[in-house]
């Protein structure tokens, strides 16, 4: 297998793009990534796009062909990849494998979701499709409800509190306030979260990531030629994808996401490093409890201590391990299929030392963690400065 590097990145602002459609968003991200890569464009021989639900959200399927056409990339193949909220991460892995295997030299990988064309109730129902339709959704499950079941169990087993969860949202809004691409750039307090409307006990509105339009893209190349095109290629040193049961009730434990633990262990093994070597990480905080479980299951903190660590500021910009410098899903927004790619874009900015007001000093190694559904798919990537 060849070594693979990111040589170009681009993304749209995340938010409510009432005046712009699916194709505008994905093309903006793609063109920015191409410009950043230093390629002419003719070198690209394949593309992948992470997208969860364009058929339900905007009535458009066959988006691989749509993008190839609208980007002027015909006749190269562009393949849509779907793994619910992990669609972006899985698409990145497909691009990585295509370059690593030697099947393709230069590959563009995008992620996109256009979510605000529908009302909130319909969007929630569509997102529910990431769980088990027949045995969860049909019986009244919602995604906040499923993560609330995990939160309750985490509170029961480890004494995690609602304030600890709230502190994750406060920290992510603080980071998001420094990110011009973030959907929400306002700071909030613990009280903002605690006083917000209950969604699924104990999760309140401010414990939940929003509905977002947006797109992100990266360009991949073999590491050995990457420097010819871009002065600061970022190597992908590990790419791991793990599956678990589709329904939350079939898991052995609710206070952890087992697929995260397995993916992290494998990724660290491949990269020959330990969690302590990671300088900055983007983790999947679709709900505040999800970030607490992620930082434990990835090995940054002992099981059960994630909530306390968050409350103590250990995951802030100047903390032990800065988590979600982009603002995470909570504050930067969560255009489902784009999230996994946005995470890679943010880590690339960090490792290039181009993250401006949210730059982590001396960041050499970064990690991304992308979750589909309630944990049925997890993708972990590790990136290194070259």
């Amino acid at each position, binding site marked *: 297998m060849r070594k693979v590097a990111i040589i170009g990145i681009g993304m749209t602002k995340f938010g409510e793009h009432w005046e712009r459609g699916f194709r505008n968003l994905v093309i903006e991200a793609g063109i920015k990534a191409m410009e950043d890569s230093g390629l002419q464009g003719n070198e690209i021989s394949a593309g992948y796009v992470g997208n969860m639900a364009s058929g339900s959200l905007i009535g458009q399927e066959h988006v691989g062909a749509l993008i190839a056409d609208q980007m002027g990339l015909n006749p190269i193949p562009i393949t849509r990849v779907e793994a619910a909220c992990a669609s972006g991460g899985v698409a990145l892995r497909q691009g990585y494998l295509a370059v690593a295997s030697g099947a393709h030299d230069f590959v563009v990988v995008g992620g996109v979701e256009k979510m605000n064309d529908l009302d909130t109730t319909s969007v929630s129902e569509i997102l529910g499709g990431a769980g088990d339709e027949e045995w969860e*959704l*049909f019986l*009244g499950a919602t995604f906040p*409800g499923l993560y*609330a079941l*995990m939160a309750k169990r985490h509170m029961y087993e480890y004494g995690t509190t609602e304030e600890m969860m709230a502190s994750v949202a406060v920290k992510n809004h603080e980071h998001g306030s420094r990110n011009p691409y973030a959907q929400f750039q306002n700071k909030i307090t613990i009280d903002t979260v605690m006083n917000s409307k*209950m*969604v*699924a*006990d104990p999760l309140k509105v401010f414990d939940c990531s929003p509905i977002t339009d947006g797109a992100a893209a990266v360009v991949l190349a073999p590491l050995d030629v990457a420097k010819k095109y871009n002065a600061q290629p970022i190597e992908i040193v590990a790419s791991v994808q793990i599956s678990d049961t589709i329904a939350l009730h079939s898991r052995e434990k609710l206070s952890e996401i087992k697929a995260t633990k397995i993916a992290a262990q494998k990724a660290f093994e491949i990269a020959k490093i330990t969690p302590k070597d990671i300088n900055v990480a983007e983790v999947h905080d679709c709900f505040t409890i999800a970030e607490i479980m992620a930082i434990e299951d990835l090995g940054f903190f002992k099981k059960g201590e994630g909530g306390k660590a968050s409350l103590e500021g250990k995951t802030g910009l100047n903390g032990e391990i800065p988590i979600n410098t982009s603002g995470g899903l909570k504050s930067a927004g969560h255009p489902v299929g784009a999230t996994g790619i946005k995470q890679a874009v943010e880590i690339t900015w960090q490792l290039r030392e181009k993250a401006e007001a949210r730059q982590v000093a001396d960041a050499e190694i970064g990690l991304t963690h992308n979750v589909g559904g309630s944990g049925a798919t997890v993708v972990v990537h590790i990136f290194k400065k070259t």
Partner: protein
Amino acid sequence: MKESIPLTWRRIPERYRMKGVKCTICSTNYFPPRIVCPKCRRKGKLETFYFKGNGTVYSFTEIHSPASGFEEQVPYIFAIIDLDEGSHVTGQIVDARKDDVKIGDRVEAVFRKTQSDDPEGLIHYGFKFRLIKNKKTEIKLM
């Protein structure tokens, strides 16, 4: 969540009577039923097994922003139940208020209307759960 008539019809034995499966090779009971035993895979042998529906509350929440079809029931208590005969299952806890429920409480399955698609659509029925400790007390719902 709207469901098609054929899908609803297919699931009636499972939803009305908790019809699950038992793998006779590894002696694991599965509800909801599985088509393949994930432990034994092709070597497994699955037979019909009816669950009694008794169990304990493994985790629960109270949902305030409902799934579609559940608007009339808000807020509702939603739980994962550890069934006595094996398997965890998702379901509602009814005839109780949030403060009545604790992790570890004993529950039994009851047959209820689960949701209606819309005024002219299907009415769905199936299992929900009730706290055993509340069984003898008359509960005023209003």
